[in-house]
């Protein structure tokens, strides 16, 4: 480990993690993909795995198409503070809780999921990217009818 992580590096990682949520909720597929290294990895659900930009793009585009993500999904990703651990060598790990509220058919909002992002991050050419993101489900609410604009389904959260 080469020294301590600087404040700028820590804030760079926080910005990466924060911007990811807005990409998901706006349906910004390219913004989402570009948060990962070209050979970046996403693991989610029960052993599902995407490797590389093309695979991540196909997965995210599919989720957007069926309104599991994006502005019409009825979901939003509200992130807590990440715990970041690393040295001054341009690599770190981070863990972040995410609360995902959902708008239900009744007009009520419930917490659909609480998940964790477990990240390996790498700084390349001055910018932090995800080398690997593991999306872990911590709490999953029972399905309920959702608002017209959104679907309820297998909570393969992003």
């Amino acid at each position: 480990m080469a020294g301590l992580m600087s404040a700028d590096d820590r804030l760079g990682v926080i910005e990466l993690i924060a911007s990811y949520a807005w990409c998901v909720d706006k349906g910004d597929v390219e913004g989402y993909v570009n948060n990962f290294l070209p050979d970046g990895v996403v693991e989610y659900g029960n052993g599902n795995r995407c490797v590389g930009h093309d695979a991540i793009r196909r997965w995210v585009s599919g989720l957007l198409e069926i309104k599991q993500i994006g502005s019409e999904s009825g979901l939003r990703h509200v992130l807590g503070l990440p715990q970041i651990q690393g040295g001054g060598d341009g690599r770190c790990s981070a863990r972040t809780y995410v609360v995902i509220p959902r708008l239900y058919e009744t007009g009520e909002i419930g917490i659909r999921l609480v998940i964790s992002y477990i990240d390996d991050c790498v700084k390349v050419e001055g910018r932090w990217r995800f080398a690997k993101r593991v999306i872990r489900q911590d709490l999953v609410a029972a399905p309920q009818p959702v608002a017209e604009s959104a679907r309820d389904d297998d909570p393969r959260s992003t």
Partner: protein
Amino acid sequence: MLESTPMSADDRLDVIDVLATYPRCLDSGDVEGLAEVFAPDAVLDAMNGSFSGLTAIFDWARGLIAGGRVGASPPQLVHFVGLPSVEGDSQRCTAQTYSVIITYSPEKAITVPLVGSYHDTLVKKDGKWRIQHRLIKGELGKTTQ
């Protein structure tokens, strides 16, 4: 005019602090504390209208508090603000932040009537970051608060 340079760590932390001060002021009923959040000539585009200048923003906050839930003691409503996404330079930046409105009833039920988002432009004047423009958008939920 000051030269713009990349945002420093101190700048980012100061911006995060300003964003965190807003819910603390509203939830505690500290209307005048919003002077530490908004620039004197700030514009607040809320879900119930547009408010220009600190006096109008104070009046808007007093209106919320008069509704009985915001700023109540003991607390009946909390603005749970998420992690902001901040982009900009040493003089001006934008920030996007989710806010989950959590209410608490006399029956001790916790509910989420609204998920909103703040879309801010902040400027640094005299070494202090303040919100120049805040747009509050409803993301989920139907309340107009």
